[in-house]
């Protein structure tokens, strides 16, 4: 039996691209790329830990950019952010396919890998849109608009531009409780930050940290939400389809305050 090579990486996109670089550099036939956190030592395998190297990852990304249009690049990145187990290997097949096809217009978009990737990217895109909709900022005493979220996929990197463009004149923070990091905008730029303040047990801003009329506006929003409902048209199935229960936790209008 031929032992299979497993490449372990830190979970970052640069880390993944470094793995792709290594695959080409060392001419590894059919490797498995996996996050360190998911590694389980198997028999008959060789595993190698790949150290993220931005020069290498940049070279791969540059190469990809010359081969496929930006819409397709976005799809690739989104699929990666899905964190679905094994997605790295589908992406590797896809990237190999791109590099081996001389001309992007010749790439067969009905190919199985590509279809799968665009399906996954679509799911991630949907989650991105949901977060753009379901983020609820709470204004704090130090005048920062804070929101906590627990998205199904790792969509924070996709949210930067939307929120930066829209809320250019207020400081804001969007924190992913599940993945323990957040985006912070300081009126100038967006940084990626981690905080000890939030945890799985402490998932939102405490009332004593609210700005003066924060609670009033939350209540006004609830009042509004309740007033626009038309009882004679009630349709719970449709309601749940648009607003699945798992998102309710952070929606002011769906909670008692």
């Amino acid at each position, binding site marked *: 039996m031929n032992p299979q090579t497993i490449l372990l990486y830190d979970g970052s996109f640069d880390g993944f691209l470094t793995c792709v670089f290594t695959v080409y550099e060392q001419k590894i036939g059919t490797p498995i790329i996996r996050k360190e956190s998911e590694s389980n030592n198997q028999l008959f395998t060789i595993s190698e830990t790949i150290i993220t190297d931005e020069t290498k990852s940049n070279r791969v990304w540059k190469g990809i950019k010359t081969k496929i249009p930006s819409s397709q690049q976005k799809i690739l990145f989104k699929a990666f952010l899905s964190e679905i187990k094994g997605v790295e290997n589908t992406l590797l097949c896809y990237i190999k396919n791109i590099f081996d096809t001389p001309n992007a217009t010749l790439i067969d978009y009905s190919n199985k890998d590509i279809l799968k990737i665009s399906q996954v990217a679509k799911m991630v895109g949907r989650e991105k849109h949901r977060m753009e909709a379901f*983020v609820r900022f709470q204004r704090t005493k130090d005048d920062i608009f804070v929101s906590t979220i627990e998205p199904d996929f790792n969509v924070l990197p996709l949210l930067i531009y939307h929120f930066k463009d829209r809320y250019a004149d207020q400081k804001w923070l969007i924190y992913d409780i599940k993945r323990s990091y957040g985006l912070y905008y300081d009126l100038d730029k967006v940084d990626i930050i981690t905080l000890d303040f939030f945890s799985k047990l402490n998932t939102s801003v405490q009332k004593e940290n609210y700005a003066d009329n924060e609670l009033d506006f939350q209540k006004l929003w609830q009042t509004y939400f309740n*007033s626009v*409902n*038309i009882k004679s048209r009630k349709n719970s199935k449709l309601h749940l389809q648009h607003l699945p229960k798992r998102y309710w936790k952070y929606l*002011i209008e769906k909670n008692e305050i």
Partner: protein
Amino acid sequence: MSFERMREKLSILADAAKYDVSCASSGGKRENTNKGIGNNTGMGICHSYTEDGRCVSLLKILLTNHCIFDCAYCVTRKSNDIKRAAFKIQEVVDLTINFYRRNYIEGLFLSSGIFKNSDYTMERLVAVAKKLRLEENFNGYIHLKSIPGTSDELMREAGLYADRLSVNIEIPTISGLKLLAPDKKHEDFIKPMQKVKNEILQYKAERKIIKSTPRYAPAGQSTQMIIGATGESDKDIMYSATYYYKKFNMRRVYYSGYVPVTTDNRLPSLQTEVPILRENRLYQTDWLLRFYGFSVSELLNDQYKNLALDIDPKLSWALRNLDFFPVDINKADKNILARIPGIGMQSVSKILQARKFRKLDWTHLKAIGIALNRAQHFIICNSKDFYHKDITPYTLKNIILKTSKSKHTKYFTNQLSLF
């Protein structure tokens, strides 16, 4: 202003505005300039959904529900014994900004009962929009519902600050209007629409010469009709709609199933159910007209005055025109593909894309995501098996109804899950 009073006003004035369905905040991009607040990306976001499954995207309120008119179908009418309230201009501005900053909404949809007269009311609506734009540097979405009978000068000013303007015709036929809204004249609706249309045309022309021409209602204008209040036929409704689309370059016409709000012998009784299914069929028809290349007389005419409720309008057209089929998936033009039941515009583009690489058969079509239970009877593809048979429309309809999961339960969305 006490918070409790504000809450009370909000509940009264949101409640009174909620029957207006034109919730779309899409169309008309507006960028965030000078590091102000907000932008409009051209794709309205639904920030929440009501329990009836409708999109909550805008703060939709009336400035006041005091009204000098007495339109029978309206909760706000003068003779109705209800609580009345009015916002101050600044209050609406504050609410909008504070909701927007918290990412609750995409913007403001402001309408009003008529107090004193049309211009007096419209002036206040315009003042809200002006304050938001000039004082708050707000670039989010603003939709002003124009008051019928507003003067041209005010309509001009309104368009400088609002993204979209609408005048709701409410009643699709002139005779219905006379019966139910005796205070309103047909011309009062037409005049502001005409003004908005002209301003937009003028803006577009001037813009070509002078880049700095101030923008005018970039998201265009829309209107709404109430369905099922006056016994009008679907043909009446869709012919009116077509007229408004053409004559005034409407961006959208909205159809709102009448929700009984009052006992009045001119109107359906309070127990009447909201015609949600009918409303859905009208929206489907509207889409067929705007995006699928159908003309209104193909779908509705003197022989077929009303849409079928049990099947969608495209399928019903197809059953009446079986000689048009079968269509060859691998050869037909785009506009022909668009006429196949079960195939939406998205699927059409997918077919066009995919057939460049190979001739498509049933498995390919399935993979693309086509509703084959309907489509299969109307097409041929790269396969020897085909389902197209010479049978009567009636039999075919029954076969299709039997094999499709019946969505025809009680409710439909106007968020349009089409075809």
